[in-house]
């Protein structure tokens, strides 16, 4: 029986908002983790000289000597410190943080959850997870703008199962020495030009991200929590107009994946597991670089034909 992120808060609005996100995410964990959220002043920041990552107004300090992960949203909007081996995150959010857009709050808490679930063996990759009509698992790895969300929506509308278009987690597979992917269910989000090219009506406006989103089910696709990838694709928007694929060595696939899974560098106790899962994954998969052309809009099945 899978476990979940358990939310603990005394603040009704946080309970409603974050509780809904977590319910929608349907993240299946091998062990429970706890997210404790208090609303109130943060206090003075503690000076931290450790190496810094920064992402979406979230500043992350990590590494020795404390070996904690300290995260600040803001400045002054939210804060947490995660300790090694502890699957509970105590998060403080200010009233000003709550007054920010829901999407920014969500982005901060998503970062917290990404580090929290590392403690039970899930390691984040910017990637889309899919199940093709023949039952093969696919992982499309790429940063924002690579075309993976557009490709995911195209394929979702053409009989493919979908787990996520961006928030994927590496985890130990059921078969020894293999890696599976678990998807964080969320809106598959497209920019306006992709929506226009797709010609798909409806969806939810994700204003902060300037995108429109659909859950997989709203595209008549099946949502798939967990896949065992057989193919890793690294999409990019091509200039030739026609879609093409080229093989990638396992080593190149691994290094390409690392740029989309940078947390592998953080938390020495967890880096080995994270790197090992990525290494297993590239060994179990066929890796390809995908140059996306406009012809994929007319013929999404082209991807399978090119791979055959």
């Amino acid at each position, binding site marked *: 029986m899978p476990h979940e992120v358990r939310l603990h808060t005394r603040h009704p609005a946080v309970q409603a908002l974050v509780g809904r996100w977590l319910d929608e995410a349907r993240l299946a964990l091998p062990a429970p983790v706890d997210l404790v959220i208090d609303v109130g002043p943060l206090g003075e920041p503690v000076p931290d000289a450790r190496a810094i990552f920064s992402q979406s107004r979230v500043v992350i300090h990590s590494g020795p000597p404390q070996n904690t992960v300290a995260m600040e949203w803001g400045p002054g909007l939210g804060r947490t410190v995660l300790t090694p081996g502890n699957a509970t995150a105590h998060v403080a959010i200010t009233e000003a943080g709550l007054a920010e857009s829901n999407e920014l709050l969500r982005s901060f808490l998503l970062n917290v959850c990404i580090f929290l679930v590392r403690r039970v063996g899930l390691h984040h990759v910017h990637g889309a997870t899919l199940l093709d009509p023949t039952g093969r698992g696919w992982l499309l790895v790429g940063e924002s703008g690579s075309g993976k969300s557009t490709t995911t929506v195209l394929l979702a509308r053409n009989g493919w199962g979908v787990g996520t278009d961006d928030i994927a987690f590496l985890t130990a597979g059921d078969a020894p020495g293999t890696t599976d992917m678990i998807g964080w269910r969320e809106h598959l989000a497209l920019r306006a030009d992709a929506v226009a090219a797709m010609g798909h009506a409806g969806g939810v406006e994700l204003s902060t991200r300037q995108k429109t989103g659909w859950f997989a089910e709203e595209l008549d696709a099946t949502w798939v929590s967990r896949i065992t990838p057989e193919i890793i694709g690294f999409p990019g928007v091509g200039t030739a107009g026609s879609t093409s694929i080229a093989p990638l060595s396992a080593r190149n696939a691994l290094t390409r994946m690392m740029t989309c899974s*940078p947390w592998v560098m953080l938390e020495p106790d967890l*880096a080995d597991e994270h790197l090992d899962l990525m290494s297993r994954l590239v060994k179990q998969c066929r890796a390809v670089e995908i140059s996306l052309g406009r012809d994929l809009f007319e013929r999404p099945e082209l991807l399978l034909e090119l791979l055959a």
Partner: protein
Amino acid sequence: MTTVYSRHADLRLTAVDDEGVVLHLGSLRYFTVNETGLTILQELMQPRTIAELVKAVTDAYDVSDDTAEQTTREFVNRCVEAKLLLAEDR
């Protein structure tokens, strides 16, 4: 006096397709190494001298001692510069 080399505590290594991918957690950088480099870094699971590393290379590959020593020294020196390896005189 002998120089003994060992892996830096921040080094993480994985082997793929007979090559290696190396992370340095302190500097948040990663490197790729060829098959010979992978052999040397795997041998450095335990602290080793240059002579021990050269022997590992000549055991693994059909190369002369001179070539193996030159290759090993160059590789080890680059790794020390990148803080992937520590050098200790004993």
